[in-house]
C-alpha cells in the first residue's frame, strides 16, 4: 500500500478580489508530498506559486478545496509547518541564536532543550561561530542558512521554502543548494520548495510539479530518478543534463503559451 502523504492538496482554487473583478490565480490544484520527500514546484513568475505556499502555511485561505497535513485539515498557520521566505526575514533585533530560538520560545520549550536544539541546528547549518552576532553582520547566504535553521529548529512536519535562494548570486546559490541537499539527506525531513530555477529543482527534488500560468494549474508532474546519493558532481551527469533540457523546453513552451494568452 502507498504510504499516506505528509501533505495533500485537494482541488484547491484561489480567487483574489481585485479592482477589475475576481482574479483566478490557482485552479483546481491537486498535489501531494510524501513523508521524507523533497518536492519542488516550478513555474513562471506570477503563476501563483507563492499564493499556494502561503495557503499551505495557513497565512492565506483557499477559496475552494483543502490542504491536509498528515490527514488533518489546515485551519491556520502553525509550528507544524516551517517556512523560509525569499526575502531575508531574520529578526534584526535578535542574534542568530535568538532567531533560531524564537519558535521554541513561543512554544514554551524548556530552556535546556531549547539551548540544545539551537546548538544542534546551528551546527547543521554551520553557523555555530556566528551564534551571537546580529543578522545584519551576515552575508545573504548565511542569512538564509540561519532562516533554514530557525524553521527547522521547530521540528515541523514539513518545510516550505519560497525561492529561498532567489536573491543570491550564482556561486552562493550552488553552495547553498548542496548544503540544502545535505541537510535533507541528513535530517530526513519533508520539503516543499518553490523555485523558478530548473537546475535547482532537478538537483534537489525527487519530484517536480510544473505550473502553468494564468490561472495557475499543474501542467506536469515529473519524477526525478537521480537516486538519493547525489552530490555536486550529479549536476554534470548526462541524465541530469537530459532532464534539465526536457524541463527547460517544457517551461519555455509554457511561457510562450502564456505570452500568447496575454
Amino acid at each position, binding site marked *: 500500500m502507498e504510504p499516506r502523504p505528509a501533505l495533500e492538496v485537494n482541488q484547491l482554487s484561489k480567487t483574489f478580489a481585485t479592482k477589475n473583478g475576481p482574479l483566478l490565480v490557482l485552479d483546481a490544484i491537486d498535489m501531494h508530498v510524501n513523508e521524507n520527500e523533497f518536492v519542488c514546484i516550478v513555474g513562471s513568475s506570477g503563476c501563483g506559486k507563492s499564493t499556494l505556499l502561503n495557503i499551505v502555511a495557513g497565512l492565506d485561505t483557499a477559496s475552494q478545496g483543502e490542504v491536509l497535513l498528515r490527514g488533518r485539515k489546515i485551519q491556520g498557520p502553525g*509550528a507544524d509547518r516551517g517556512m523560509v521566505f525569499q526575502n531575508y526575514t531574520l529578526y534584526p533585533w535578535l542574534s542568530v541564536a535568538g532567531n533560531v530560538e524564537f519558535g521554541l520560545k513561543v512554544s514554551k520549550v524548556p530552556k535546556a532543550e531549547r539551548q540544545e536544539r539551537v546548538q544542534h541546528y546551528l551546527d547543521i547549518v554551520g553557523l555555530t561561530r556566528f551564534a551571537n552576532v546580529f543578522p545584519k553582520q551576515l552575508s545573504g547566504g548565511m542569512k538564509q542558512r540561519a532562516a533554514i535553521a530557525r524553521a527547522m529548529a521547530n521540528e515541523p512536519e514539513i518545510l516550505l521554502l519560497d525561492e529561498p535562494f532567489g536573491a543570491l548570486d550564482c556561486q552562493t546559490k550552488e553552495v547553498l543548494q548542496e548544503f540544502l541537499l545535505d541537510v535533507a539527506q541528513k535530517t530526513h525531513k519533508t520539503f516543499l520548495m518553490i523555485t523558478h530555477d530548473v537546475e535547482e529543482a532537478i538537483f534537489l527534488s525527487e519530484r517536480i510539479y510544473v505550473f502553468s500560468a494564468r490561472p495557475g494549474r499543474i501542467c506536469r508532474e515529473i519524477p526525478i530518478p537521480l537516486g538519493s546519493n547525489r552530490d555536486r558532481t550529479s549536476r554534470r551527469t548526462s541524465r541530469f543534463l537530459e532532464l534539465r533540457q526536457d524541463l527547460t523546453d517544457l517551461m519555455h513552451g509554457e511561457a510562450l503559451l502564456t505570452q500568447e494568452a496575454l
Partner: protein
Amino acid sequence: MKTLEPKQTATNPDRLQKPSPRIWKIRGEIPQSVYSSMVVTSILLPLAAWFALSYSGLVDPLFIPKPDAVAMAAVRMFQSGDLPKDAWASLSRVGIGFCLSALIGVPLGLLIGTFKVVEGLFEPILGLFRYMPAAAFIPLIILWIGLDEPAKIAIIFLGSFFYNTLMVSDAVKFVSADLIKVGYTLGASRRDIFFKVLFPATLPNIIDTLRVNIAGAWNFVVVAELVAASSGLGYRILTAQRFLRTDEIFVGILVIGIIGLAIDFGFKLLFRLVVPWAVDK
C-alpha cells in the same frame, strides 16, 4: 568583439576618469579631520560675528549684549540660584507632560498600527487634532484648568501627544509583513506577534519619535511659561525683557538650547544602548 565603435572609446574614458572631488562625494565619508573642522567653523563663525558686532560698538548693547556681559549674567543668575531653579521648573514640566504623552501615546500608537478597528476609531480624529496648533488651545486650557502647573503640563501634553501617537502608529505599519508572517509560521500567537515582533521591530522608531517630539515639547514649555508662570526659563526670559536685561535673555535662550541638546544626546545614547542592532554602520 569588434562591435565597439571607435568614437565611444575615444570619449567615454575621458568622462569616467575625471576625478570627482573627494569631499563632495554624495553621501560619501570624509576624513574625520575635515568633519571636525567643519563643526568648529560652524560654532566659531557665529561667535566671531557676535564678538565683532558687540565689541566694535556698531550695535547698541541693548540689542546685542557683549559676550562678557552675558557670561557675567550667567554666573550671577547661577549663583543666585535662579537659573538652576528655573531650569528645573521647566524640565520637570516637560518631564511630566511628555512622559504622560508618551505613556499613553506609544501604546495607543502601537494599537492603531496593529488593529484596523483601533485605527478607524482614533486615527482620523487624532489626525485632525494634530493640525490644530496646541498654542491655540492655551486660552481654553487656562479657562478650563487655570493658570497653575496642571495647565502647563496639559499644554505640553497636547503639543506632543498627537505626534507621538501617529508617528508610532506609522512606524508599526512600516514593519514588513514578512516578519509577521514568519512569526506565525514559527508558532507565534497574535499576542506573541504584538509583543515579540511588532514591538521590538518598532522600538528604534519609538525612541527616535520621542527624541524628535521632545524637542517640540521643550519649545512648548517656553511658550507655556511666557503666558503665565512664576518660574521657569520662559518666565525668566519674559522678566528679563521687562527690565531690558538683554544679557539675561541671551543666557535664558542659550540655556534652553544647551538643555535641549543634552536631551537629544540622551536619547541618542539610549538608542545605542537599547537597540544597538539598529545603529547604522
